[in-house]
């Protein structure tokens, strides 16, 4: 088991380096020197920058230096926690992203839990009540869930909630709570807001996972050990939840690696629609304004989070399924 984890860790280290290379390429991709563009913009606005400041910036970002030196400068800075400067906000990137990054990861995890709980219950119900009216209803909902883009669902629900309940559900907190420290009332207010992005982002994955769960459970229910359990007189509930579901859940853990990126993608777009304090609005805005240090840092952190998520999923799978750790490690 330790060997397996170590090998996976080494593997992840290689991927992290490659992700960093991609991050750097993305910074370098837009045509023209970003620094020049930004300086022009500030001059056009009548901003005052003296030559010494320009030279210092050029020195810091190595604009005139060859590619590999620029890469090294950026990478070593990144490791030390200096992610570069956001040219739009004229603030270090690290100051802009932390809180938003935590919000993003926290709500993504909530979404994941929501997806799993709902998908397992729907999947089990559909598999045990195959071809019942509710099963058909779920099948229709699954098809729709897979074809509605998350941002559209967010818009629709926002309109519906506004029309029926009169709530203004954008952001994570009502304006009056925005600057207050966390207390019970703020948490309640947060819960009133956070369910919408969770449901909206999770809908797509829930549809897919419940489909997978249904198919798996149907396969497992046909196996002989389930028949054996039934013929022993074990209660049907125990047969399903203790014997069958446990074995049907492995593929769900296996697709964790694919469902996490989907959640992050959905989360970012929905963040724009619902005006959430996550990295979504910041990221797309940065891309539009070619504020590349900010954009690349966000993309890299999200990808690192995904790599860690995948590592945890693999370890989890090795724990629940001995075939994997025995087969490979």
């Amino acid at each position, binding site marked *: 088991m330790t060997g397996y984890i170590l090998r996976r860790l080494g593997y992840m280290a290689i*991927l992290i380096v490659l*992700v960093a290379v991609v991050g750097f390429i993305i910074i370098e991709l837009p045509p023209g020197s970003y620094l020049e563009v930004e300086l022009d913009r500030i001059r056009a606005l009548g901003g005052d920058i003296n030559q010494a400041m320009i030279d210092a910036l050029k020195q810091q970002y190595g604009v005139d230096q060859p590619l590999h030196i620029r890469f090294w400068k950026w990478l070593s800075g990144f490791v030390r926690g200096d992610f570069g400067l956001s040219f739009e906000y004229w603030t270090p990137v690290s100051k802009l992203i932390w809180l938003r990054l935590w919000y993003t990861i926290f709500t993504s995890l909530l979404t994941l839990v929501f997806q799993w709980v709902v998908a397992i219950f729907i999947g089990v119900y559909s598999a045990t009540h195959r071809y019942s009216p509710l099963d058909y209803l779920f099948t229709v909902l699954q098809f729709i869930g897979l074809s509605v*883009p998350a941002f559209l669902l967010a818009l629709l629900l926002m*309109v519906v909630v506004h029309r029926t309940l009169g709530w203004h559900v954008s952001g994570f907190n009502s304006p009056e709570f925005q600057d207050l420290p966390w207390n019970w009332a703020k948490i309640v207010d947060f819960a009133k807001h956070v369910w919408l992005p969770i449901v909206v982002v999770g809908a797509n994955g829930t549809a897919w996972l419940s489909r997978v769960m249904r198919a798996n459970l149907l396969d497992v229910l046909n196996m002989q050990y389930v028949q054996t359990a039934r013929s022993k007189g074990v209660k049907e509930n125990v047969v399903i939840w203790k014997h069958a579901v446990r074995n049907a859940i492995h593929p769900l853990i296996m697709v964790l690696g694919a469902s996490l990126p989907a959640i992050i*993608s959905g989360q970012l777009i929905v963040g724009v629609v619902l005006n959430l304090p996550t990295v979504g609005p910041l990221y*797309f805005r940065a891309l539009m304004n070619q504020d590349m240090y900010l954009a690349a840092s966000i*993309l890299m952190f999200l*990808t690192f989070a995904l790599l860690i998520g995948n590592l945890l999923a693999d370890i989890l799978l090795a724990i629940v399924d001995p075939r994997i750790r025995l087969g490979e490690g």
Partner: protein
Amino acid sequence: MTETAQVQGQERAEVWVEPISEVGQYSQWKLMRMRFARNKLAMIGSIGLLVLYIIVVLAPFLAPTDYMRQNADYVYGPPSKLTFRGPDGKLGLRLYTHPVTTVLDKETFRWMYMPDKTKFEPVVLFAKGDPYTLFGIIKSDIHLFGTRSGMRIYLLGADSLGRDMLARILMGGRISMTVGLLGVALTIVFGTIFGTASGYYGGFIDDMMQRLVELIQSFPTVPLWAALSAALPNISEEFTALDRYFLITLILSLVNWTGLARQLRAKVMAYNRADFTQAALAAGASDARIIFVHMMPNAASHIIVVAALSIPGMILGETSLSFLGLGILPPLVSWGALLRDAQNLNTVLMAPWLMIPGIAVIIAVLLFSFLGDGLRDAVDPYSI
């Protein structure tokens, strides 16, 4: 026998309608076609898509006006009211619409559009209107419907510049419905080359390719697409909106090919050990011949299925990118670009018809999913 096994048994009985002796003589492709035709959802998918494509090809004819034509007097105007009740107050076969008068609502300071129910304007078929060109050669100014006086009919309302939403949705369909096809063609090219090379040659090449695939798959897709699109140059004389559209499809497929490559690699690896490959090798066939003559025809159905199943994702990807303003840009329109107008709550509450392009997206994606699922079930004709 469990309940599920019985149900499968019934399915089996339904499926074998032809005598077995005849089925044995059908070709693999014919068997696939037969299985596909038997799948109701797959048939709905393929017929629906055919209709959709015919609609978007004929878009300028079906739309009553040019999709770019503005109307300052009908900003965020609601869908036109149509009625079969004529000036004489009786129901007839002729469809009428009313001219619209603009009134300023003194409380909200918003323009209200009131149909003038005393005046009637008959809706006619094949009315003359804005000129357009079909298939690049047929020039015409005949539209499916319109009015004789040239008064505009807005079946699906108007946008922020008073442009006809129906025309814009139809023209947007041209982009949105081809992004998937074009992107998938590119996906097949990349996926097939990388997947086959990886599976056939193995060793170092395979290792490199697999790391590349893992690298691409470790990024969240939409953010990566967005980052790549953000690097495209601005629209100008040399770099038109159409160029941008082609590059967007390229970007979509650059991220999308990995799935196909992975699956094809596994297939080709299995074929490597197959007798027919060994026989071809022994007969002195070249690598190219083995790959193109012996392996590709075997993998063709698989490639088609994986490709078809990836189309919905590409359409949704383009929609998301355009919605964020990082995809298709004006003067071109796509469904996602149209939805960009519906970004804030107040606009949507005031002009809910701006969300109609979303319905178009959902329909297209559903139809493609039906088609993809049907193809997947059909490719394995011997499996029943």
